[in-house]
């Protein structure tokens, strides 16, 4: 045992040193280091056996694992298996396969072959989950709330993309920024690219280290390679580290040993069928996976997925009134409000008071018009003409995912795995503005040594924003490139003269405005024209710092981690898991996103964790104590405990109680961002160096609140930036009742957020002259005048506690003939937010779901179907990009399918948002219509 721990620690140190000194990761060297290690020779117990079904047919691809070690194998095509373990009998084997009831077999004599007969089952609650405790346990006995989606669920789902399935789980919100950019959130704080929910794919944090959003839908597993998704709603950083304040989503791929063979799936569909925002267009999703075992020691897999479609469109053209990064929807259209700023219209964020800037100078030069001009409104704000989202954002969403893995069994229980994911594509993300992520590339590469009891892995995330651009900034700059706003012949000079001319011809204000706009816009490039395209492409390919819209981001992450499972319970103490990791971010945006124009910025973070599990009172009570310490170089170290208990009230009926403390260090952007966004506000990171750079101490900043609008500005000070923490109390019950036909899962939680990270908007006089803020009559206009005032949005910790609470219930009832009906209800509520803070909670007060499912019915049980209904209440949605009401909506997804067993084919006809009633699940994001597809799957496990 100690040898293994020692090996792990030595390797961890070597990897850590390597990663901190050099990059990128020299994979071959590490492989050599690992392969040459002579430390893996141990006494083995060999167990042989076979698995059959009730009709005495051998069952391939059945999982056999040794209980509480994680060591395991699968049956071959003849249903036989061979398993090595260094633990001595008696052992417990867990035998599981999709569609069959799980069995536990006691092995007392290793020399006797094990014969297992699995029975067909649609029985509920029989799944095994790993992520709740980092060791396998029955889902019914999980100490924390957990939801599991397995390969069979994915195969049978009506969702066109498997991430959508997560969105229909209880307590989950999905923010759909675009077809291929969907962000699941739990326990609130929903946003496109949520940073409070970890997404971990095969042990790798899927968050893009610079862009700060998880790219699971863009760079992750292809659908055919997903073995399971496990969702832990609620605080989970005690095991999964910083982040995971609100939950963790763990996605695991299929082992090439366990799932060999070729499979593919072709989904072809239709979108935009009613031509609302685009012409009807196709949806294509092709996936391929090929896994091969070469002997018993070596296996590999490769996979790929291509999604191509015309994206959903952000088409909220309502008028938006912006003040710094807060604002609201107001009445008005381009034709009725000269200062119109459409939510999903870009370029119209540029606004100028033409009275002050153009007409008053005309009055001074032509005194005979002065009384007339003086009688016009005192402030005449005019915005430039924008382009709608579908005019500036590439309509083609393309997503290519490639993945591959090599798995070498150094010993029967020790796997050496090298794997990589790489993805690229076009998609749209909503952050402080809408971003067209164009030719975005992200790769994740991993080496791992895994022995079931312990693992050690190193991985890196290599991000490249490609040609991604900020739609708002780029379109504003496009307008400037076509016709500058300022100057004697600029757009505003032309507009204002034409406006005055139109007034002098007898037009009303708004008619004069509209004709002035037509005049100033004459010759404006038409969206889609060659002229438009050339100019737009020119502007978007210039980096932001050089006056363009291009987003340069090549930030990388290096991470090494190890874990050891000291199964000492049998020796009378407790099961103990220990682990540690080291993380290094290298921020590299060439000054376009971070304050890194002078060179890359490194951020180091390390942590360790320990978990002890002890069963008491005849296994009636299980206590689990976990703790984790982390340190980030920009933050004080943080210790977070978790205490959880599972009380078995009856067989298959468990009550779970937990207290968890979770935290997150601010995201890399919240630490180091330095970006002036479309609204003119500079988003700053929370590190003090940035505040010093902008002279906050010598030229004070004032909070943009009601005081400033009444001419009484309050100076804002920034204490040391801290990690955000949550203390979460949770109780739940999961149980099988009514002759094991009804699965009930209930949870309730109460969370107290401390040092909650929010943003505060502050203003600073350009000339250090406080008087620009002291006159209530002019302060609002001064705030919008970049010549007078700098606006900043700075992350802060809210000193008072923010509280959340909520509940979730699901009932699944197993009907005869394989039908399962389910209903869910869940709620998340935020309270105690101090006034003036943008908390961006964004979760509905109530969500309801209902589903009917059948994995096999009719002739030879060949037919399948699935119907899922989802309803959620309205949400007052707050984000950097905009605030507004997201109305209540419902969706209906359905699928019917038919299996052709001899040909290994599954044909499905499915619909997402079957009723084609457009909805948005987040303000200013894409509106989503119906997607109808037919799918052909070959050899789907």
């Amino acid at each position: 045992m100690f040898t293994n721990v020692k090996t792990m620690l030595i390797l961890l140190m070597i990897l850590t040193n390597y990663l901190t000194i050099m990059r990128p990761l020299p994979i071959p060297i590490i492989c050599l280091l690992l392969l040459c290690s002579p430390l893996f020779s141990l006494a083995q117990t060999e167990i042989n056996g076979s698995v059959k079904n009730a009709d005495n047919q051998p069952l391939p691809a059945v999982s056999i694992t040794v209980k509480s070690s994680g060591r395991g194998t699968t049956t071959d095509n003849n249903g036989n298996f061979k398993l090595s373990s260094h633990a001595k009998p008696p052992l417990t084997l867990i035998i599981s396969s999709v569609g069959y009831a799980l069995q536990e077999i006691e092995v007392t004599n290793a020399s006797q072959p094990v014969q297992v007969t699995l029975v067909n089952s649609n029985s509920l609650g029989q799944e095994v989950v790993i992520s709740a405790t980092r060791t396998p346990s029955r889902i019914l006995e999980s100490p924390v709330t957990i939801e599991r989606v397995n390969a069979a669920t994915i195969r049978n789902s009506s969702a066109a993309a498997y991430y959508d399935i997560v969105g229909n789980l209880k307590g989950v919100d999905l923010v759909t920024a675009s077809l291929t950019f969907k962000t699941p959130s739990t326990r609130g704080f929903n946003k496109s690219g949520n940073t409070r929910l970890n997404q971990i794919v095969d042990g790798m944090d899927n968050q893009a280290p610079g862009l700060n959003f998880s790219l699971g839908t863009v760079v992750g597993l292809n659908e055919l390679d997903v073995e399971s998704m496990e969702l832990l709603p609620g605080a989970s950083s005690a095991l999964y580290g910083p982040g995971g304040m609100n939950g963790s989503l763990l996605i695991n791929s299929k082992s090439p040993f366990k799932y060999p063979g070729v499979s593919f799936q072709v989904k072809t569909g239709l979108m935009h069928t009613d031509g609302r925002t685009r012409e009807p267009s196709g949806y294509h999703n092709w996936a391929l996976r090929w896994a091969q075992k070469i002997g018993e020691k070596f296996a590999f897999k490769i996979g790929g997925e291509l999604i191509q479609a015309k994206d959903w469109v952000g088409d909220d053209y309502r008028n938006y009134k912006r003040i710094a990064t807060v604002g609201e929807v107001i009445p008005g259209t381009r034709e009725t409000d000269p200062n119109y700023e459409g939510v999903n219209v870009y370029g119209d964020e540029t606004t100028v008071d033409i009275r002050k800037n153009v007409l008053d100078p005309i009055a001074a030069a032509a005194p005979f018009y002065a009384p007339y001009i003086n009688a016009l409104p005192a402030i005449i704000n005019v915005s430039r003409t924008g382009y709608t989202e579908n005019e500036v954002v590439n309509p083609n969403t393309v997503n290519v995912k490639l993945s591959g893995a090599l798995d070498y069994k150094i010993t029967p229980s020790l796997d050496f795995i090298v794997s990589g994911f790489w993805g690229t594509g076009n998609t749209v993300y909503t952050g402080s503005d809408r971003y067209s992520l164009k030719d975005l590339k992200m790769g994740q590469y991993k080496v791992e040594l895994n022995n079931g009891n312990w693992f050690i892995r190193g991985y890196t995330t290599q991000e490249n924003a490609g040609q991604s651009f900020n739609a708002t900034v780029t379109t504003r700059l496009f307008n400037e490139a076509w016709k500058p706003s300022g100057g004697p012949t600029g757009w505003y000079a032309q507009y204002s003269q034409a406006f005055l001319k139109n007034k002098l011809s007898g037009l009303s204000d708004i008619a004069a405005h509209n004709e002035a706009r037509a005049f100033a816009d004459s010759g404006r490039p038409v969206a889609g024209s060659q002229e438009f395209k050339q100019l737009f492409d020119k502007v978007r390919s210039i980096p932001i710092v050089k006056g363009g819209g291009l987003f340069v981001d090549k930030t990388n992450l290096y991470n090494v981690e190890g874990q050891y499972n000291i199964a000492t319970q049998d020796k009378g103490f407790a099961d103990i898991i220990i682990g540690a990791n080291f993380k290094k971010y290298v921020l590299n945006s060439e000054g376009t996103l971070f304050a890194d124009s002078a060179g890359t910025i490194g951020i180091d973070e390390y942590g360790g964790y320990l978990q002890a599990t002890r069963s008491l009172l005849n296994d009636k009570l299980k206590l689990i104590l976990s703790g984790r310490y982390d340190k980030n170089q920009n933050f004080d170290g943080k210790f977070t405990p978790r205490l959880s208990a599972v009380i078995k009230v009856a067989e298959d009926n468990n009550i779970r109680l937990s207290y968890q403390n979770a935290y997150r260090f601010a995201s890399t952007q919240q630490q180091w961002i330095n970006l002036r966004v479309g609204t003119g506000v500079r988003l700053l990171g929370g590190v003090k160096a940035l505040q010093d750079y902008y002279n906050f101490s010598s030229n004070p900043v004032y909070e943009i609140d009601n005081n400033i609008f009444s001419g009484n500005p309050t100076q804002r000070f920034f204490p040391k930036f801290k990690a955000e923490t949550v203390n979460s109390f949770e109780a739940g019950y999961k149980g099988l009742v009514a002759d094991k036909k009804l699965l009930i899962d209930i949870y309730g939680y109460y969370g107290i957020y401390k040092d909650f990270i929010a943003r505060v908007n502050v203003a600073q006089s350009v000339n250090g002259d406080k008087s620009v803020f002291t006159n209530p009559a002019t302060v609002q206009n001064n705030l919008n005048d970049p010549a007078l005032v700098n606006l900043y949005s700075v992350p802060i910790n809210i000193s008072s506690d923010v509280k959340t609470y909520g509940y979730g219930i699901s009932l699944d009832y197993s009907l005869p003939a394989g039908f399962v009906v389910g209903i869910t209800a869940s709620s998340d509520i935020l309270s105690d937010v101090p006034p003036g803070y943008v908390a961006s909670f964004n979760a509905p007060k109530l969500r309801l779901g209902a589903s009917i499912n059948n994995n096999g019915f009719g002739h030879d049980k060949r037919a399948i179907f699935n119907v899922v209904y989802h309803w959620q209440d309205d949400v007052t949605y707050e984000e950097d990009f905009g605030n507004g009401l997201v109305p209540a909506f419902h969706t209906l997804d359905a699928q019917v399918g038919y299996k052709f067993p001899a040909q290994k084919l599954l044909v499905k006809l499915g619909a997402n948002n079957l009723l084609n009633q457009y909805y948005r699940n987040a303000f200013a994001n894409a509106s989503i219509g119906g997607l109808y597809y037919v799918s052909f799957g070959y050899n789907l496990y």
Partner: protein
Amino acid sequence: MNQSIIYKSLLKFLTTAIVIISITACNKDLENAVPIDAPGTGGATQTLAEFFATDTNYSFYNAALTKAASFGLAAAFNNKNSRFTVFAPDNNAFRRSGIPSAEVITAGFTAGQLDTLLRYSLIPGNVYTTGNISATFPNEQLPSNLTAGPIPGTILPFNLSVYPSKSATGFYLNNIPVVAADNILSNGVVHTLAAIVLPPSKVLAELIYTNDTLTLFTALIMKASSAMPADASFDYYLKLPVANFTVFAPDDEAVKTLISILTGGQIPVQAPEAVFLNFIANMLPVQNAQGIVAYHILPSKAYSVNFPEAATYFPTLLNNSVQAHPGVQVDADFTGPFVSGFKVTGVGNQGFASNVTSKDINAVNGVLDIIDQVLLPQ
């Protein structure tokens, strides 16, 4: 229960559920942008065009509007996106101005003449009610709808100004009283004029230099200007279209009287005009000519109706060089809103007022009043 019955009933349930959901529970349509209603004027529904077409008191005006339709004003009056402040002479006003019938309008004027006439009495783009007009002396200068061409180097038109005013004695456009004000319509407001307001076509210089009774005053202006920079002389300013002056021009008899006195009678008032011209050109010191001319010009455009009933001092251009000078004393006598008497008195005239013999001659850049006695500054 037979399995197939179960499927069938389940599928039936499912189909029914889907149908019910799709019929009863629709997602609310995503909200669209809401147009802002352009504020109409005072909730009125009738347009200017409808008003003039239907109110028989304005049939002469409407005849003019109809005849000039090809110039677009009638259409503009019909456009709900228009805004005009219309100073409109009613039929009585036309008659008062010597036009007895609608037929005379139709037959006696070209469409262009009528369009010019109508547009000069409009303030475009804004609705000025009595309450919006300033009571500050002398009046408010606002653009009419009559365009004299573009302002060089811009796309802006140069619209001739009109001068609405408000005082204790009434509400006026230039020198013409408004007899009924503030008739608010959906796209404008109508103020009824007592008479036609004629647009000016000439600058002050042209009016003065071509007037047979102002030959000697013209000579004084030339003499005074001869010693001034070309772009800052009286001559220059009186020709400048965007200037605003009130000129009290003494007629030839008044100038002759002055010269006769100045020469101690050596030049009798009966002397031939050439003698006076020669005196002005060759003997009168240029400073004196400048002083006389400056003292006859007010630096703003004031019609007789803009002056108060009580005699009041107003500064003249002389105040540019002699700042403490009290100026000239002007008083207007009113009968109702109309001026019945109009006098101006110089400081050096020992209380003898000059009578305005011809008042309110409208120029592009000012107003000309002819007086019967030279104003003496000291």
